[in-house]
């Protein structure tokens, strides 16, 4: 199964990937994606707000969807909330499968979905100015690729 966690604490992508493979002999591929806070245009911090009950429910639903679409052998999705600074990890998607194709596709699917369907909102802090990040049409287009007809 794909485990989903929403937490303020940092995570270690290497530890999470190793945990997926521990004691297994059937896993041939682990794809791990980590999103980090970038110091764009004088950004001091990024604060992530979320809707906890809906986040947990929607993450579990999309994890089940990915599990049904690809032959996966395990996975971990972690999304942080609260105040983060440049260089901090925000999100982890780590997916295990027998062969790389399924792991790459499922990881990309999960990230595209997180960007457009998980109820998180980012506020940028540039010292003098706080601004809510606007949604991007390119993220909607990326997620639309996975819509089943």
């Amino acid at each position: 199964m794909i485990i989903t966690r929403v937490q303020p604490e940092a995570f270690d992508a290497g530890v999470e990937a190793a945990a997926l493979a521990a004691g297994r002999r059937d896993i041939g591929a682990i794809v791990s994606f980590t999103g980090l806070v970038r110091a764009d245009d004088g950004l001091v911090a990024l604060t992530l707000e979320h809707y906890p009950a809906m986040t947990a429910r929607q993450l579990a639903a999309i994890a089940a969807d990915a599990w049904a679409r690809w032959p996966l052998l395990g996975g971990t999705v972690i999304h942080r909330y609260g105040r983060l600074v440049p260089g901090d990890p925000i999100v982890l998607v780590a997916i295990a499968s027998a062969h790389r194709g399924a792991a790459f596709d499922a990881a990309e699917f999960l990230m595209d979905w997180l960007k457009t369907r998980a109820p998180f909102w980012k506020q940028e802090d540039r010292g003098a100015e706080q601004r809510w990040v606007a949604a991007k049409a390119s993220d909607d287009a990326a997620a639309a690729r996975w819509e089943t007809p």
Partner: protein
Amino acid sequence: MITLLYFAWVRERIGLGEQRLAPPATVATVSDLLDHLESLSPGHAAALADRDAIRIAVDEDFVGTDTPIAGAREIAIFPPVTGG
């Protein structure tokens, strides 16, 4: 009674994260509810004026504005999401 939840700039403009109310009997859909909420305060009106800029979840699922709200317990109003 319905619990309303507001997030991000919708929360800031309204000045509340949460409120409970019993909408008038004429309120049948999400769109009707938004019209009603707009009448409550200048903050509500400012937050809800641009309907293309907000998203709605009824009992933790995304819905369109023509969705009936009969039986809904919790309705959340927020900007398009920006996680990941």
